[in-house]
């Protein structure tokens, strides 16, 4: 569904992505894991067309995304730090997004998170008055709102309280069962254990491996994802 081929991106002298190739198929739940600054967010932003790669290309459903924009209709994106127009209320932001996506009516919209996060009572609050966690809730709600085929979640549970985090995880599992492609980055590996099927590990702008979770478990002999990744990370450090 999403194919990245030899994508490279440089910010000034810093390499953010170095010849990254990956293939993600419908029904998978892929975890993007790697140390800070390893290029995870840049890869995600490249997929969304927010960052234009220096070389290589990305296709979505077989079409190059470079001059396309309609493919984003099929993506729900939850950014790492949700940035919204400061003097709009939550209600205005949501209705603006509905307006832009031209989707209305309950059959096209999924407002489940709006209720379960309790955002209903906060609809008239301005974005600038919201706490970081509440912003994350708004971001999550917007990502799921339009029933997209692909969900891209950049550190979804960072900043959320345990209750909200569980609600979100439940929602992700539910959507996964509907056969959607889900891409998650997170540093809280224990959150990912029961969500993901595939692991992409990145380090120093390079994609180190792309394996299914069961393969990774078999290779490292660890049951828990956090332990498995830790053993990979220490091995690579040891090699250096």
């Amino acid at each position, binding site marked *: 569904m999403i194919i990245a081929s030899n994508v490279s991106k440089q910010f000034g002298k810093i390499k953010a992505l170095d010849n990254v190739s990956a293939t993600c198929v419908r029904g998978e739940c892929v975890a993007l894991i790697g140390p800070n600054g390893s290029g995870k967010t840049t890869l995600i*932003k490249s997929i969304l067309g927010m960052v*234009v790669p220096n070389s290589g290309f990305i296709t979505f459903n077989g079409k190059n995304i470079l001059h396309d924009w*309609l493919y984003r*209709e099929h993506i729900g994106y939850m*950014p790492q730090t949700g*940035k919204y*127009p400061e003097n709009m209320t939550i209600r205005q932001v949501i209705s603006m997004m509905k307006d*832009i996506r031209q989707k209305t009516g309950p059959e096209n919209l999924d407002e489940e998170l709006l209720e379960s996060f309790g955002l209903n009572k906060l609809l008239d609050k301005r974005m600038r008055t919201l706490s970081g966690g509440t912003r994350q809730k708004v971001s999550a709600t917007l990502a799921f709102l339009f029933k997209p085929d692909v969900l891209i979640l950049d550190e979804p549970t960072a900043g959320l309280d345990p209750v909200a985090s569980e609600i979100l995880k439940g929602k992700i599992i539910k959507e996964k069962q509907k056969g959607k492609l889900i891409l998650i980055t997170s540093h809280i590996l224990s959150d990912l254990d029961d969500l993901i099927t595939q692991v992409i590990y990145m380090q120093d702008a390079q994609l180190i491996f792309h394996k299914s979770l069961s393969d990774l478990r078999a290779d490292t002999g660890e049951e828990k994802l956090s332990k498995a990744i830790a053993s990979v990370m220490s091995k690579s450090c040891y090699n250096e």
Partner: protein
Amino acid sequence: MNKVIKYVMTDILRNKIVIGYTFFLLLISLSVFNLDDNSTKGLLSLLNLVLIIVPLVSIIFSTIYIYNSAEFIELLVSQPLKRNKIWISLFAGLAGSLSMSIIAGIGIPILIYSPTITGMVMVVMAVLLTIIFVSIAMLAAVLTRDKAKGIGVSILLWLYFSLLFDGLALFILFQFQDYPMEKAMVVMSGLNPIDLGRILILLKMDISALMGYSGAIFRDSFGSNTGFIIALLIMISWVLVPTWLSLRKFNRKDL
């Protein structure tokens, strides 16, 4: 496209600065016309307002607005919208709302006190200058990532167009005073939209005789209808070229 323009427009109109700007223009125009019975004198005083304050407010407000809507732009870019569309909508929203202030703040008093061709030319020039400086501001904002730097560049650009350029033109004129510089001056005036606007308005005011020999040259070049239309086309290219450049840059920008 209309949707994004709608949100930009409502956001700007909710911003009290544009409303304040409209009232400020209205207040000045009304007081200028009421100071003297002769409406031509009023127009002349208004000319300086149009040539100094309108570009300044347009360029500074637009630059700050673009930087402040960085979040809004980032949000829109991740949505199924063409980048061209987002940028053009921002431009149209800014240019549209600032032009509306001009029409309300300068256009209405001129219509009441001096509904002449000169007055109309002045309103058209004020609107054109607004649009030109919005597009220059957007170019400055897309080229520099840092907000303070971007605003500084905008102020410098305004300073260049409204003061430094004239100094430069005079300097060149004095250096080459032994040569016939009239044609060159006409071409040079096309390099500065503010100068072009000033010349076009002054020519309509029939006081170009006061400008001496170069006034006669300008009269020859821009006084005719074709000259006027060519000058207008130059002004329009002052809108299109910066917009096109900023659009190209924005399409490749990483957010």
